[in-house]
């Protein structure tokens, strides 16, 4: 059976230089993939390439074996939902309207969309925010609303670009746990992260890690792979030390003096 999503030999150039360099990945239904890499390694471009938001200089994107470019916008929205790195609108919009708008593909009456939006907000722990303006929300509240828009869209695969950026440690953990919960219910997820420790909040046994460096895939394997440390070194270009505390695993990059 064809993969849910497939990126085949994708290259994206910016100013003649590759920001994604001959990258191929396949995402199976129900899978959780973490894309890790340093800033500027191509994580955002990879996600946008899968969504069809950037033009490929070479390569293709396929959804269940069909070319993405041949699919209508609503069909695409039924397969992929996106949580971008940048925050949502700065316009004064009601939270319930923002979430209801993510159900555009359903062609349903507004009352139905609003009802679904309220259910999604409750699931994301933001039921009390429905009648607030998004411009009045804190970072954590906004993130809950963003997750509610993903829930409301009811797409089969979630693509999240640095979903924990600008959040405090508690909300970073909650966001990743929420995502892990959705994957356990059958949602496919592909999440870009630069902080590898956030993966401590997801089920390691079902999480595949793809490491990007300078637009190329330099390592991939399961999160609980015994060579994960070497993988981090290949991804970031410096050795990582493994530490353990209270049953949790931590990876710290070697300090400058170790590197000299």
């Amino acid at each position, binding site marked *: 059976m064809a993969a849910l999503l497939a990126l085949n030999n994708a290259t994206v150039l910016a100013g003649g230089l590759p920001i994604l360099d001959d990258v191929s990945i396949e995402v199976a239904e129900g899978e959780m993939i973490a894309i890790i890499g340093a800033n500027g390694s191509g994580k955002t471009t990879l996600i946008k390439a899968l969504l069809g938001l950037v033009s490929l200089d070479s390569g293709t994107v396929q959804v269940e074996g069909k070319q993405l470019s041949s699919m209508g916008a609503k069909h695409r929205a039924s397969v992929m939902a996106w949580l971008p790195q940048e925050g949502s609108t700065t316009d004064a919009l009601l939270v319930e309207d923002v979430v*209801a708008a993510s159900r555009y593909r359903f062609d349903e009456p507004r009352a139905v969309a609003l009802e679904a939006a309220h259910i999604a907000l409750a699931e994301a722990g933001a039921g009390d925010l429905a009648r607030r303006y998004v411009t009045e929300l804190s970072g954590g509240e906004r993130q809950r609303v963003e997750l509610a828009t993903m829930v409301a869209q009811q797409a089969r695969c979630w693509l999240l670009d640095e979903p924990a950026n600008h959040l405090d440690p508690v909300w970073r953990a909650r966001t990743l746990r929420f995502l892990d919960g959705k994957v356990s219910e059958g949602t496919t997820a592909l999440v870009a992260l630069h902080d590898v420790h956030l993966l401590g909040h997801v089920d390691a046994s079902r999480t595949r890690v793809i490491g990007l460096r300078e637009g190329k895939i330099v390592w991939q394997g399961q999160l609980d792979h015994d060579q994960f440390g070497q993988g981090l070194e290949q991804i970031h270009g410096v050795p990582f030390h493994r530490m353990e505390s209270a049953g949790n695993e931590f990876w710290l990059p070697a300090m400058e003096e170790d590197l000299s």
Partner: protein
Amino acid sequence: MTAPLRLLGWTLVGTAIVVATAWVGPSLAGERGDLILIELRLPRALAGALVGAVLSAAGAVVQILLQNPLATPSTVGTTAGATLGVLAALVLGSGSTLLGFPLLPAAAFIGALTVTLVISAVASRNRARTEDVLLAGIALTLATGAVSSTLRLGVDQITSLSALRWSLGSLTMVGMDRIAMLTPFVVITLLGLVWLIRPLEVLVSGTERARTRGVEVPRIRTLGLGFASLGVAACVATCGPIAFVGLICPHIVRRIVGAAPRILIPGSMLLGAVFLPLCDSIGRVLVDQREIPVGVVTAALGAPVLFWLVTRRSRN
């Protein structure tokens, strides 16, 4: 009270204000008072309401489509394109129809559409920033303005003077015949813009987000700019270019009731429909014995608002 009832209530209030503006100005006492009211003032008020509704709603939609609160048919060059089209038609002085269509709206529409297509092409590029779109609009406004000026130089003084008067934007000479010509364009434009509210509810959160939520962004953008251009072109052909209505009214509505397009667009229509006749009536009483064209009044009010918006944005 439900939203449709509220809208109906505000529409009735707005209608009452529009009708009342017909009584503002030099006294209607005397034997010709009724004639002036029925033949001149009321048609002016009606034309002002129609033009104001179109310009304001078009401004609100263009702002959403281009993701910029400063974008309007004026600032992105659509008005200047329509102006050039009408000036060309006036100066070339060909027949009253073009391929079966009334000449002035046809010429205005061709001018507006040409500029709009260029702006749409700039806006649809993947990496186009909103500043690029606005700068392209300014460049096109200046370029079409230069061509318009050159056209004026090549004609006799009387035609040039009438072109200058027309370019100030005025409702003075709009009678029922022009309103009859304008109305179908207004109806098509307003219905078209209302029809786009649903995808615009998604687009207001960002172009890329809208694409991933199922909106055919290029199609909606083309339709939105097309309907806005059609309406603006018809308005320019009717009463000349009237600036800033599309900037001020949506901003006032946004500040009062929020930015949701399902409220913003009808609200902008309503406010524009009241605002323009009000400005026209102010122009009638501002200077004794003389009338100031409504386009001058809206520009005088709009320029400070634009300045305030720019400084507020830079503070944020």
